[in-house]
């Protein structure tokens, strides 16, 4: 058990360092970047598009539990919730709460 436990601590440390690295390098390079510069606008685009890429990858090719729900179910829930987002005047609480309830219910029924 001691072996496994020290292994978990190493895993947590490695994960945290790999994550902080990007945050740290981001702050370091932003010291020389002006908010009105072209490079700032480029990184703004890349930040938004990378987030969008991550989210759509998570929905279409998920890792973990989400993988066990059918792709049409996942996409259906996302479309329904995006619809409710616009229907309720861009209120984020409805789609957020609805998403979990709809998906859990649909999995139970189907």
């Amino acid at each position: 058990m001691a072996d496994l436990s020290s292994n978990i601590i190493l895993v947590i440390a490695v994960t945290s360092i790999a994550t902080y690295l990007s945050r740290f390098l981001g702050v370091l390079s932003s010291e020389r970047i002006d908010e009105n510069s072209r490079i700032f606008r480029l990184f703004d685009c890349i930040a938004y598009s990378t987030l969008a890429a991550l989210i759509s990858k998570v929905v279409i090719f998920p890792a973990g539990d989400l993988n066990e729900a059918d792709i049409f179910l996942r996409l259906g829930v996302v479309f329904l919730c995006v619809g409710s987002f616009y229907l309720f005047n861009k209120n984020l609480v409805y789609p957020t709460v609805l998403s979990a309830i709809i998906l859990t219910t649909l999995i139970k029924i189907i």
Partner: protein
Amino acid sequence: MVSSGYFLKGFSSVRSTDSPAIALACSFVAIGALLKNIGFNFQQSFFSTFFTYALPGQLVMAESFLVGASLINIFIGVWLVNARLLPMAVSMFPLLKSRKQPKWKYYLSCHFLAVSSWLIMKKDYRTIHEDFRIDFWMGIGTATWSIAIISTVLGFVISDYLSKDMMIGLAIVNPVYFFCMLLGSMKNIVIGASVILGTILGPVFYLISPEWCILYGGVSAGIIAFIVGEFNG
């Protein structure tokens, strides 16, 4: 030190109706339960969110740990999925610059950088005076980070009561919330193009390279959107 007024203003911004608090809590409850299921103890689960605080990275960690991946493979896998934090930092920290503020605040508070806190800051920074934006940011970050840690602990404790179906249901909350929030932040054609192209290219590049798809898809979509913007701008 830190201006408590602006810190508290940032801290309480998670109470608004478009707050990421619910989405964050659902996701980290799921992470807490997942970590317990794969054999982490209470302290290890707590410190995982305390020190990493990045949902996709922690998911990669959990999956890699389960299949017994080497530490170097875990490092690369986590780095790849969390590399988005670099462009996010570069597109936010220049907005928080102030000569009156010490550097340590920036290097400490970048730990709070996550999609949730970033989207709040990008939305609200104009309402805060330049010299105090970093304090406001530290408030937002402390609040979102605390929610994540408390939810991880909660998920660990209640994991026995969460059925498989509920875990799957919780897992969809995060992408739905952030997708809606991204759609809501498409205020001009350039950001709109970035979001739409990223949504398409991320999964497309998955077919070529599952590990690198977020970086390849995100960077190429961002560059295309940037070029579109410069020609129209």
